[in-house]
């Protein structure tokens, strides 16, 4: 019986070798991905025993860890409550981290490679390890103005520095209190989460970046950019019929409220944008060809893909256009055309920056625990969809919108403001979404904004972008310019 016993011994050796090889695969090859998996609460719990870095806005911490005497040594606090919640996110025992707390987690928790030297010295000096601070590009005055102006409505506002891409304001309402999701009491966290779940719209959703909406007439700036790039000038006369018969279908397109754009059924490009003439822009897109405008949109990054800044940004898109009728609806920023409010602000910032679109960024600096700069934001060009000349023409046209057209509520004393309003019908019997994008001062732009209010805010009458969103845009732009020396 010895021969089979020897074979069994070899078989056992093989089985155990398999066990050991498999353990190697899990504990060495897959170890990193398992360790950092979002479902792995071990790392999160470990992180509570270290002082997490702060998230800082203009020298003031908006997320900071304070020592407690319970088993989890540090409690995350957000002194400004809901104001910065869309940017900071929360740091939850149950739900894990979100937003900047998540994307910059390695730095905040101190495990990033850029902190390696410090970690090693901590080891030898016995100093308690600490995470790095993340400095946001936000402007506190602009953030507060945007947040206050959006109270009571569902909406979002973004302000960008057109010259660098720095995000100066990013507000989303309704908001939530990240303190309540970041407490050390699981029951309290769950209660608050249930309360948020029950809300009509999720307060945790950052509408500025995580969702996209039909932009209405704001999209006409893209069509105008395509036309100007193809040799049109602001003075070029384009057809502007009262009713546009859409070829290949029985559908027709009318202007807002059934009004007439021009007695002669023809008007200049600048006038068409100023009064936001629907039929003129539908005909213009048909004349330019579907592909031309789609290319221009893609140049602005409106191509159905998202990006990171470092928060993940939902895709903005033109959508499928399968017929002339669909193209007619798309030309007024409805049907499948979708923009995130951040992307709408990017269109304004591109026009403001002579056609150069800067990549938006939210993190301006990484500071070591000793406040030394470890890394600084390096402004980058996102794309250059239009020439400086086209950008100047568009600026002229958008100044006309604010001076004489639908965006007059955005006027600021003593300077030219460029803007474009949008009103997107969503469904029968529901107030339309209202938009405003713009920048100021028009001759030396310091801020570009986009304001989105879902379902026309709270106004009883059918609200327009000019009435609801433009004044909010002005408030934010004033806040930025009032706070910069």
């Amino acid at each position, binding site marked *: *019986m010895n*021969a089979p016993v020897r074979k069994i011994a070899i078989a*056992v050796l093989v089985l155990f070798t398999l066990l*050991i090889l498999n*353990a190697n695969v899990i504990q060495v090859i897959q*170890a*990193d991905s398992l360790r950092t998996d979002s479902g*792995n609460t071990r790392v999160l719990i470990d992180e509570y025993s270290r002082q997490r870095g702060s998230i800082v806005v203009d020298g003031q911490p908006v997320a900071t860890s304070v020592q407690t005497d319970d088993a989890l040594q540090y409690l995350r606090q957000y002194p400004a409550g809901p104001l910065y919640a869309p940017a900071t996110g929360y740091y939850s025992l149950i739900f894990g981290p979100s937003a900047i707390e998540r994307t910059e987690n390695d730095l905040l928790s101190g495990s990033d490679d850029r902190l390696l030297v410090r970690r090693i010295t901590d080891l030898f000096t016995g100093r308690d390890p600490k995470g790095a601070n993340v400095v946001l590009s936000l402007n506190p005055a602009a953030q507060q103005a945007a947040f206050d102006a959006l109270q009571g409505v569902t909406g979002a506002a973004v302000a960008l520095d057109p010259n660098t891409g720095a995000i100066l304001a990013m507000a989303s309402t309704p908001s939530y209190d990240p303190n309540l999701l970041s407490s050390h009491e699981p029951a309290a966290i769950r209660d608050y989460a249930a309360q948020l779940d029950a809300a009509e719209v999720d307060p945790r959703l950052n509408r500025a970046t995580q969702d996209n909406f039909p932009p209405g007439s704001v999209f006409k700036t893209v069509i105008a950019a395509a036309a100007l790039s193809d040799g049109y000038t602001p003075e070029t006369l384009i057809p502007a019929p009262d009713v546009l018969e859409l070829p290949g279908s029985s559908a027709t397109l009318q202007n807002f409220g059934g009004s007439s754009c021009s007695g002669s059924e023809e008007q200049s490009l600048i006038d068409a944008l100023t009064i936001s003439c629907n039929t003129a822009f539908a005909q213009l897109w048909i004349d330019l060809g579907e592909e031309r405008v789609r290319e221009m949109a893609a140049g602005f990054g409106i191509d159905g893909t998202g990006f990171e800044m470092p928060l993940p940004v939902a895709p903005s898109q033109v959508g499928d256009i399968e017929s002339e009728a669909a193209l007619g609806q798309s030309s007024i920023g409805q049907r499948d055309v979708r923009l995130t409010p951040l992307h709408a602000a990017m269109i304004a910032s591109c026009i403001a920056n002579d056609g150069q679109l800067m990549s938006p960024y939210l993190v301006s600096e990484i500071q070591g625990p000793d406040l030394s700069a470890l890394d600084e934001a390096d402004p980058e060009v996102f794309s250059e969809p239009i020439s400086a000349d086209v950008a100047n023409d568009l600026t002229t046209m958008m100044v006309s919108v604010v001076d004489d057209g639908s965006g007059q509520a955005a006027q600021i004393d003593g300077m030219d403001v460029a803007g474009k309003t949008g009103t997107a019908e969503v469904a029968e019997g529901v107030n339309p979404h209202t938009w405003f994008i713009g920048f100021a001062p028009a001759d030396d732009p310091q801020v570009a904004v986009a304001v989105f209010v879902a379902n026309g805010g709270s106004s009883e009458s059918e609200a327009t972008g000019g009435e609801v969103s433009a004044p909010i845009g002005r408030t934010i732009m004033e806040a930025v310019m009032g706070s910069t020396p």
Partner: protein
Amino acid sequence: MSAVMAAPQVAAAPPTRRNTELAMLAFACLLTVGAQSIVDLTVTGSLTVEVATFGASFTAIWAVAHLVVRKLAPYADPLLLPAVALLSGLGLVIIHRLDLAEQMDAALDGDPMPGAQAPTQLVWALVGLVLFVAVLAVIRDHRTLARYAYTLMFVGLVLLAIPAVLPASLSEVNGAKLWILVGGFSIQPGEFAKVALICFFAAYLVDKRDVLSLASRRFLGLDFPRGRDLGPVILAWAVSLMVLIFERDLGSSLLIFGIFMVMLYVATERFSWVLIGLLMFMGGAYLAYQAFGHVRTRVDVWLDPFAYRDDAGFQIVQSLFGLGTGGLFGTGLGGGRPATVPFAKTDFIAAAIGEELGLFGLVALIVLFLLIVERGLRTALVVRDSFGKLLAAGLAFTLAWQVFVVLGGVTKLIPLTGLTTPFVSYGGSSLVANFALVALLVRISDAARRPAVVMAPKTDLFDAPTQIVKRTQDE
């Protein structure tokens, strides 16, 4: 050699190696007490007198075991006891560490403080020691076991069947009906049935091996047994299927069938039996997959645990997280979060070891088992009688197979089945039954290494006392 020969009163016996065993046991106890101290220092920040009591009790258990072996089985394999001691010591330390983790979690959540289970396990180790001593004392020659083969079969089958016939309230824990729950105690009779059935298999197969290996039909180049000789295999297969159906215990079912097939192969030296067994296993596995939702779930979860990470796959995913977090060196004893894995003390204790002691700790655990198994198989090679060979091979393979099935499950090598890690997992039945298993291995290894025939010392004619010569002549 010649020096030994020259000494007139000393027999030419092989060294017993008992002192080697003693030294290694001391090392195992030292390691265990050291690990326990590290756990306490890391988790609570202080060393209490409890570490000393624990260390003393643990060391006492193995000191007694060593003395008993010295007395009752002096030629036993010296590696078996230290390896088992280290495994059980590691188990006790990890259970203690998980006790502390559970108490901390309870304090955090404001739940009532759970009782510590490590002291209970230490008491079970003491019970195991008593059985270990009893087995060595009562069974002075392992061959006597063969005489009680059918009694052991009966006992084994009854033990297996009890939980199936008991009402669920007295036998079901977490969906598996394999317990006897009486007065706060829970006994897993299957663990004892395992040992009894191995003894029966060995005796039965030695008795019938000629029939099973000689009478055959040749087919496709392999000698296949006659139809009527398939009876015992079919019986073993049926019993394991019944365990699966009535007790919903995938692990024990797989264990019993695997052991039987391997012992059959060792007894008959015919590979065709293994082939038949594999085919029957595949058939049974397919039937079970089709018929039972819980078997299907296990397989689905095994194929993609992360798709079920919040429900059926939670446990295995948490286990993988623990192992991954542990990495190469582990978080250190007391430094990890092993209590995150449900059932960390029983089925998933290897995940706790892999998390806190890392890949090195887990591989050390596997190698310790390998050591015991290969020493057991070596005993089977050396021992002279067929029954001893088969029994030793069966016992050693049982350990190997159980370790493979449970560790493979915890590390997602094979689908998860509920089995304990021998000597390490929390659970009295498993620990005590495996102590008995080791006692049998010790007994057989003693027989294997004992000199075959004690010959009268050769004496030179010159040195021989003349009186004795004279007396012989007188007779």
